[in-house]
């Protein structure tokens, strides 16, 4: 064969392989509002940066008539590229090829690109769109899943791992995304569950649609399995592009600094907190009033909204923000909000992202359901994560910091480097109402007018203790600052913490209250 013939042969082979499951299957995919695998990669990555590998990999199954069946690229596209200028390893399951089903070689392609990501120290992005295990390959496909989970775990805290659910992701397959750092879902396209509606109907007699069971809304609002919700694949890709700019390539690096930018004018930071301590406000406005360009990139926006987490920049440096949200459930800590905050804190700590905590919480959510759901065990995760973290830790107490909530929200006692409090801060063992009822129980009970006495005692306690000065007098906070001074104090604290080094006792690993 001449070179020309060899080239023509190669072009034919390549063309056949990148057509995936054929034009009919692609049409079906598009009719479902989904993009084909290579299109997705094209839209997600910077133009002309994608390099594909293992295009000619073939399955090795001989059973059930599989030996004469060709599956293009074995149903998964793998390669490297760049997102917003950052290098990434990527794989995308191709639903047009045997429903994106996972066989041994399909899995080997994924584990190979995962190994690359680890060696090169760059983020891994996985686009999931698969019917599940390739039944014909039997236990080999299970082996494939297991090898992926193992690598997800080893890579955890070494390189950022991002999962994008753009189709079904059911049964064991859900556990690879669950082991990664951020899960993206798209309305009407993403479906995640361990057991599907069919099984639930047969076994339990309960009827439910796929959407209600494990659709995008459910995963972002109810279960907390997903971190980002989008209306379309395009919107989802924009979210990923933005996330990548906030996080470093790996755990040996810091996130790329940006040009410092002032917050947008128009947000008066002094006007956000209402004067009445029982009135709510949106803590995200405080964050926006403080951070660069007022750009707060919120994570898990819809789940456990009583705590707010996300990324922002201060003088160009990425910070991880954790803030109680008085607008929802008065900003209490509960099972879900503890879980949400703790995992985010550990991500930031693993990837050298300083933590900025805004505190305004009345305590923990009371209720039988909370106690029985293990709020003790889940709440302990927050204490663990903050105490364990060695990145710069900066805390701003905005208003209420009572009791166990005060300790949990990155207090000095859990190793905060800088603790600031606004003059509106109330740092006390509990709220004035609760405290007065206990301390002055006898006086209130024996008074001819118990209600008036209770009010007087609440006022007395508020006057004396609902302020930041007792904590300041004891050195538990470093400075009382005005709302307008907050940005400057935070930027200074981040700047001078650039070389912070704190070590922890040598151990194989801690045992957090999972």
């Amino acid at each position, binding site marked *: 064969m001449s070179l020309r013939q060899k080239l023509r042969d190669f072009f034919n082979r390549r063309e056949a392989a990148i057509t995936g499951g054929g034009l009919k299957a692609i049409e079906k995919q598009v009719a479902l509002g989904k993009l084909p695998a290579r299109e997705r990669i094209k839209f997600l990555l910077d133009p002309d940066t994608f390099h594909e590998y293992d295009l000619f990999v073939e399955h090795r199954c001989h059973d059930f008539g599989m030996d004469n069946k060709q599956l293009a690229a074995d149903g998964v596209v793998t390669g490297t590229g760049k997102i917003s200028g950052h290098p990434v390893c990527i794989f995308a399951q191709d639903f047009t090829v045997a429903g994106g089903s996972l066989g041994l070689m399909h899995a080997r392609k994924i584990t190979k690109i995962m190994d690359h990501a680890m060696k090169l120290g760059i983020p891994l992005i996985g686009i999931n769109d698969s019917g599940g295990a390739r039944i014909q390959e039997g236990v080999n496909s299970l082996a494939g899943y297991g090898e992926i989970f193992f690598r997800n775990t080893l890579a955890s805290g070494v390189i950022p791992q991002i999962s994008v659910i753009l189709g079904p992701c059911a049964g064991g397959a859900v556990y690879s995304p669950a082991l990664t750092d951020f899960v993206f879902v798209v309305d009407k396209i993403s479906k995640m569950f361990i057991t599907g509606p069919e099984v639930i109907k047969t*076994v*339990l*007699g*309960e009827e439910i649609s796929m959407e209600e069971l494990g659709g995008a*809304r459910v995963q972002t*609002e*109810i279960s907390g399995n997903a971190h980002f919700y989008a209306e379309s694949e395009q919107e989802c890709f924009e979210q990923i592009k933005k996330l990548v700019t906030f996080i470093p390539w790996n755990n040996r690096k810091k996130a790329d600094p940006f040009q410092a930018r002032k917050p947008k004018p128009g947000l008066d930071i002094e006007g956000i907190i209402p004067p009445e301590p*029982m*009135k*709510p406000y949106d803590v995200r406005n405080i964050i926006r009033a403080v951070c660069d360009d007022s750009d707060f990139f919120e994570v898990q926006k*819809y789940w*456990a*909204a*009583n705590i707010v987490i996300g990324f922002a920049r201060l003088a160009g440096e990425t910070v991880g923000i954790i803030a109680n949200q*008085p*607008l*929802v*459930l*008065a*900003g*209490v800590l509960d099972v*879900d909000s503890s879980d949400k905050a703790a995992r985010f804190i550990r991500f930031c700590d693993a990837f050298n992202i300083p933590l900025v905590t805004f505190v305004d919480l*009345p*305590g923990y*959510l*009371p*209720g*039988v*359901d909370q106690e*029985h759901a293990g709020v003790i065990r889940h709440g302990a995760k927050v204490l663990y994560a903050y105490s364990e973290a060695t990145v710069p830790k900066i805390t701003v107490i905005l208003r209420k910091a*009572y009791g166990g909530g005060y300790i949990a929200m990155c207090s000095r006692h859990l190793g905060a480097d800088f603790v600031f409090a606004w003059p509106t801060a109330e740092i006390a063992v*509990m*709220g*004035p*109402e*609760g*405290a007065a*009822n206990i301390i002055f129980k006898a006086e209130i009970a024996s008074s001819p007018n118990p209600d008036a006495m209770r009010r007087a005692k609440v006022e007395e306690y508020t006057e004396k203790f609902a302020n930041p000065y007792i904590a300041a007098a004891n050195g538990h906070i470093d400075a009382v600052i005005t709302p307008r001074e907050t940005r400057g104090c935070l930027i200074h604290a981040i700047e001078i913490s650039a070389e912070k080094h704190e070590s922890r006792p040598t151990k194989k690993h801690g045992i957090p209250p999972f």
Partner: protein
Amino acid sequence: MNDGPDLKTLVIDGAAYQTRYTRKFACRKPYVAPDATTLVARIPGVILTVHVRRGQRVKRGDPLLVLEAMKMKNDLTAAHDGVVKTIHVEEGQMVAKGQLLIEFS
């Protein structure tokens, strides 16, 4: 996922806060104490065997029923000493989750 004010009250340590509820909080079920005089199905399945009769005195741990569910023949045993008042199921019957199986007196 709405941004309206729809504020509710949440009482913590005697203080009433105005705030929004999460969907989960709004939908929480009030706690109901378990009833020692009833046996209900924890999982749906089929009753294979009924070991007891009406009026029979049972001791804690005595076998009551065999419920086949989730590919297992599950032995349901008495949680307390007592007397069987009513048996609501028979052998071969399908039962749903939460269905009342036996009452004790």
